[in-house]
């Protein structure tokens, strides 16, 4: 598995300088984009096509916290939990059920906007926890981070559903 931090020449950590990421993305694009090799040999075209695809994938992975966190764990050799593992956490399950109920009950723009804000607050907190855990790079903390990332994924999914419902209401 390619190390995207290495590819982008960025420190192998969760905290990231998004401006630097964008700058390196532009540099890498200028160097590897297929448009630079339109009249090159077939071998060069293939080589740069693969590299440029990696550059693109790496950008979308490093840009967002969950994918970045997961990638960092993979690079560290930590196995990521499957969806089943998180389901075992009863407290988390109860919370999810509460969220879903709130989403179902919310039928006005105001109610949904409140959910958006609350959800966002949780995501921010989760990101901070993940950042802390990943900064130590101990087995225990890496495992804990993996669990938190899985939970953050659920919250992001929820954010999507809240947004969809909000769109539907504002459209009509």
């Amino acid at each position, binding site marked *: 598995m390619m190390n995207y931090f290495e590819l982008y020449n960025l420190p192998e950590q969760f905290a990231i300088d998004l401006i630097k990421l964008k700058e390196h993305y532009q540099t890498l694009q200028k160097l590897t984009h297929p448009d630079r090799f339109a009249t090159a040999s077939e071998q060069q075209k293939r080589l740069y096509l693969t590299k440029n695809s990696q550059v693109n994938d790496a*950008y979308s992975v490093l840009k967002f916290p969950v994918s970045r966190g997961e990638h960092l764990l993979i690079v560290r050799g930590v196995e990521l939990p499957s969806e089943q593992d998180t389901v075992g956490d009863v407290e988390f399950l109860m919370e999810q059920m509460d969220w879903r109920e709130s989403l179902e009950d919310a039928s006005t723009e105001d109610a949904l906007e409140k959910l958006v804000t609350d959800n966002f607050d949780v995501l921010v907190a989760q990101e901070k926890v993940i950042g802390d855990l990943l900064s130590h790079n101990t087995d225990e903390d890496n495992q804990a981070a993996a669990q938190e990332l899985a939970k953050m994924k659920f919250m992001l999914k929820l954010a999507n559903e809240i947004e969809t419902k909000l769109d539907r209401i504002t459209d009509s």
Partner: protein
Amino acid sequence: MALLQIAEPGQSAAPHERKIGIGIDLGTTNSLVSAVKSGQCVTLADELERHLLPSVVHYSETSIDVGYHARDNSNADPANTIMSVKRFMGRSLADVTTHWHQLPYQFVADSVSPRFITAIGELNPIQISSHILSALKTRAEASMGDEITGAVITVPAYFDDAQRQGTKDAAQLAGLNVLRLLNEPTAAAIAYGLDSKEEGVIAVYDLGGGTFDVSILRLNKGVFEVLATGGNSALGGDDFDHLLASHLASQLGLDAVEEKQNHRRLMNAGKEVKEALSNTDISRVSIQLVGADEGTEVSVNLDQLNQMINDLVKQTISTCKRAVKDARVSLEEVNNVILVGGSTRVPLVRQQVETFFKKAPLTSIDPDKVVAIGAGIQADILVGNKPDSDMLLLDVLPLSLGIETMGGLVEKIIPRNTTIPVAKAQEFTTFKDGQTAMLVHVLQGERELVDHCRSLAKFTLKGIPAMTAGAAHIRVTFQVDADGLLNVTAMEKSSGVRAEIQVKPSYGLEESEILDMLQSSMQNAKQDMQERMLKEQQVDASRVLEAMHGALAEDGDELLSDNERKAIDHALTSLGLCAANNDIDAIKQAIDVVDKLSQDFAARRMDKSIQKALAGHSVDDI
């Protein structure tokens, strides 16, 4: 012009001669070709100073006629005058005829893909499109006075893999080297972006004869980044014409049979009315029906037209809304709106676009020409005439790519609006002991059921080493290139064996059929297939030699061991000798040898230049 300059080892080959890249807008209704002349990209005209080439082809036993003459005589021989062939690209016959059931063409009866029966025999949409492309190529060669190195050909952003591949195949048939397939809205953005030197977010609303696209791009320091794209590859000005044609038919009291008989005349009249109503409130046309001695006059006013087309235009606005959302920008952040395509001259379209985006759209560049101009600008850069250019196009996949899984469901592998090129790998395993083959069905679309998505192709993976069920780890890589085309490779991980892939496209033609068409077109044009293939190999060889000599000069000492260097030098000398002869296979093999020997070297060079650039040196230092 010498095809090959054999250089002394250590010296780079040909000096930088200017190459010619052309831009082609292969439109549903009209096509154009452009090139950079004296630093400006201009569309090229015919002997009568006409820049547009109607995408109309008339076939008679003695000739193939492309353009105005064919179009203006379409009423006389509708069955042999093919219009809007772009609608048939990458589609099944049923796809098109469900939407358009009064076409005057004759089709081969039990063929899933459209095969037109014409005066010169059976033709498929790729062949017909290649005749249009040939006419454009001829025009370009005459206008530029020299050989064309390559062409950038535009396609609707919403074209799927089959439609794109068909376009590329048509170009190959016409003898054009395709530098890139470029999305039409992106091409328009290039023409405007470089013209106005503006930065910010642009929305491109492109309503052509047969297709609709909307793209949201961000332009910043020469980098054009497509944020999102949406559209409908079966909605365009032709549909407005069709509504008008039906209206005229009922005004004239025609029954279904008469309507079909007069389809071409009604469509032409409808088009005339539509265009007139872009400038006046009421339009009067005279339609001479089949069998009638003189024409009957009918009139349509702007309100009637607006009522007819309102639903279709509203559809396009909904698509705009979704694209803006996918782009994750607000309407306020959109700095400019560009209108592209002849159909955007229709007043209702302009009004609704302006209302939705809350700003007046830009129309300073002719909406008929802007796409071709953008393509020509990119072509000039791709052939290498602008080595200092900073322009970079980051385009996206318009439709999600997925595979069929159990129960007729589609699992998305690459979501829509992902920046391309992109590669995604998926692991599969066998479910029977000793299983050596596997079928992967790839689809495009946003829905969850196979039946609601567009089937792209079925890939059969063969040569999987026989193992117990579940033991094989087959890694299938889905690679989408910068043209938006999919290529699938597969490898069994534990053994390292590469699977052989057989592709059966769901729409369009198989590779063998394309080769057949290519060969037969050669014979028809009295051109030697061998000659063309030899030339292509020699051009390839000269590219390899030039690139390798440059690479060795720069990095040969640092990145290669003595043995590696010796082997490569030897292979290059062999290649140089082969290229001066006529044995096509020998040249191909010699290129393969150089490729294999220099693969690691190429990868090391690439990594070195990347590390150097990222470590803080500017790109110009390299």
